[in-house]
């Protein structure tokens, strides 16, 4: 039995090898199939790398020990609102990490402004965030790349590097005019690829009067001593009768924020690549039918010598898969070279501000791309393989 199987496997390998050797004679048809599949995989990986990059931008900076306090019923910072008194109570929650300014609780004000995009000149939304000193402890990954931080009480601001790249007029040293206010741009910051990089920051105390927000904020960000402190802190805050708040983990908040975009991209990506995939499958089918008819006599000869029909069939399928893997690798490689790290911005549907992110081609995306290619190769090889097996030997030998 063992010998039998080894013999059979050997037949499959041999016949596939003979077939692959004849590729130079049919390189046109083979190339068409490989490039067809490569195209689909490139688009597939490219589109999904948008989703990956977007999610990484949103979630990448989320930390397990950061919690976010919003007004109860608010889904986003936009619709939230907390008074100065609320903020004071929130900062007394148990389990908060302590910093130089006391508990690490960062009340934040959030407004949306319009700025012209560098690329098109048309206006788009940017998040303008007013913060207090604890912000720089809670947003630990943030640091100034260029220039300096804003001074408290001054009309100064710092810009995230994503925002600076996307919008015109955000260079360090220049002045930004918004309404009747002038803001001096004093620094450029990065935040390890996180959401903050798409924003502009200033002192909350300056931003509040500029936008007539009195002493109110949108949210409070908390650093927990440990991720496990979340539940106790949440219970404390939601059961306090003076407060009407909800408490979420930062990662959950970002994940929810990215959902609309993720669904849109996945839907788009899958429908485009399915359509293209149908085309590529026909290309693969054509290539393998051509191969089977071109090699009909050769296959019949091998079978006359005693090679099995199933081995011949499997070799056709394997060749088709091999071609699809070549296409998948080519397409994935192209997508990686063309898209990976390509920086762009898109609308974050929940906050309606621009989120800067980089297309991110991850290894798992590449694997998915090759799997996609295999599906196409399998379908493209299956029917020609069945034809190869069913073709009577005597008939195939006659057709010379």
């Amino acid at each position: 039995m063992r010998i039998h199987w080894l013999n059979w496997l050997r037949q499959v390998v041999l016949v596939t090898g003979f077939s692959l050797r004849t590729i130079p004679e049919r390189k046109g048809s083979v190339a068409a199939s490989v490039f067809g599949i490569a195209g689909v995989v490139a688009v597939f990986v490219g589109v999904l790398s948008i989703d990956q990059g977007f999610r990484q931008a949103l979630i990448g900076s989320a930390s397990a020990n950061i919690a976010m306090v919003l007004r109860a019923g608010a889904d986003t910072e936009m619709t939230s609102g907390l008074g100065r008194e609320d903020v004071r109570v929130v900062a007394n929650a148990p389990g908060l990490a302590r910093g130089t300014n006391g508990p690490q609780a960062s009340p934040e004000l959030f407004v949306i402004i319009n700025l012209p995009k560098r690329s098109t000149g048309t206006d788009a939304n940017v998040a303008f965030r007013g913060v207090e000193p604890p912000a720089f402890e809670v947003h630990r990954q943030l640091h100034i790349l260029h220039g300096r931080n804003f001074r408290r009480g001054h009309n100064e601001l710092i810009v995230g590097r994503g925002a600076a790249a996307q919008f015109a007029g955000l260079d360090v040293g220049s002045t930004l005019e918004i309404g009747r206010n002038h803001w001096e741009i004093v620094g450029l910051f990065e935040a390890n690829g996180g959401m903050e990089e798409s924003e502009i920051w200033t002192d909350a105390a300056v931003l509040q009067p500029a936008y007539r927000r009195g002493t109110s904020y949108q949210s409070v960000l908390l650093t927990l001593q440990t991720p496990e402190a979340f539940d106790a802190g949440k219970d404390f805050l939601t059961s306090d009768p003076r407060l009407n708040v909800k408490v979420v983990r930062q990662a959950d908040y970002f994940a929810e924020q990215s959902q609309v975009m993720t669904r849109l991209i996945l839907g788009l990506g899958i429908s485009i690549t399915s359509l293209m995939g149908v085309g590529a499958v026909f290309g693969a089918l054509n290539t393998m039918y051509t191969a089977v008819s071109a090699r009909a006599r050769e296959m019949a000869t091998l079978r006359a010598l005693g090679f099995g029909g199933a081995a011949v069939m499997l070799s056709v399928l394997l060749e088709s898969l091999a071609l699809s893997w070549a296409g998948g690798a080519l397409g994935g490689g192209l997508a990686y070279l063309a898209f990976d790290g390509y920086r762009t911005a898109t609308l974050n549907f929940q906050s309606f501000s621009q989120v800067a992110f980089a297309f991110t081609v991850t290894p798992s995306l590449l694997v998915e791309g090759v799997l996609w290619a295999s599906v196409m190769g399998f379908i493209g090889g299956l029917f020609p393989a069945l034809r190869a097996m069913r073709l009577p030997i005597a008939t195939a030998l006659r057709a010379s």
Partner: protein
Amino acid sequence: MSEPTDLVRIEDVEKDYRRGGEEIPVLAGVNMTIPQGDFLALMGPSGSGKSTLLNIIGGLDRPTNGAIYVAGERVDTLSDRELAAWRARHIGFVFQFYNLMPTLTAEKNVDLPLLLTPLSRSERQKHVAAALAVTGLSHRAKHFPRQMSGGEQQRVGIARAIVTDPTLLLCDEPTGDLDRKSGDEILSLLQALNRDHGKTIVMVTHDPHASHRATRTLHLNKGLLEDHPME
């Protein structure tokens, strides 16, 4: 009941092909025996069913009715898979157009049927060298088919057919694609294989010149063997 020396026994073999709903009878009840050590020429006009009969003997095609026995074993009732293994063990085919793998050298082509056996690489090499020596092609072992003449390619085809030492050598118009001189050399080779190596050979041909080299000739006409063929 067959004589113990009968290697092949064909009983009432009929073969119909179906073409567009119409049944075309090709073999209409063929009976014959082939003794061990025979060199049989099968003659007949084009389309008389010679190749069909040869393919049925070699297990490449199945009769519509009748039975085939080779070396005492009934062949036509084997499954496709069993038949493939049976061909590998018992049959050597020689084709009119050689049917060599263009991407393989002569020795690799000859090696092909041995890959289906449990022989080791060095044993296979010995068999390949012996088969190439018998066919007079040792000096062409490393050449590709396209680098060889038709006669040489057919010798490779014969070496491939005999390398497993099959029970039966089946040749379908082995000289049909060759000039007279090369054809004669191939026929001499087949004769030598029959005479000196005891190979049982069935050769389909429509060339009387070729059939004279055989020890016996049968004529197929309109799907039947003629008992007393005209000379």
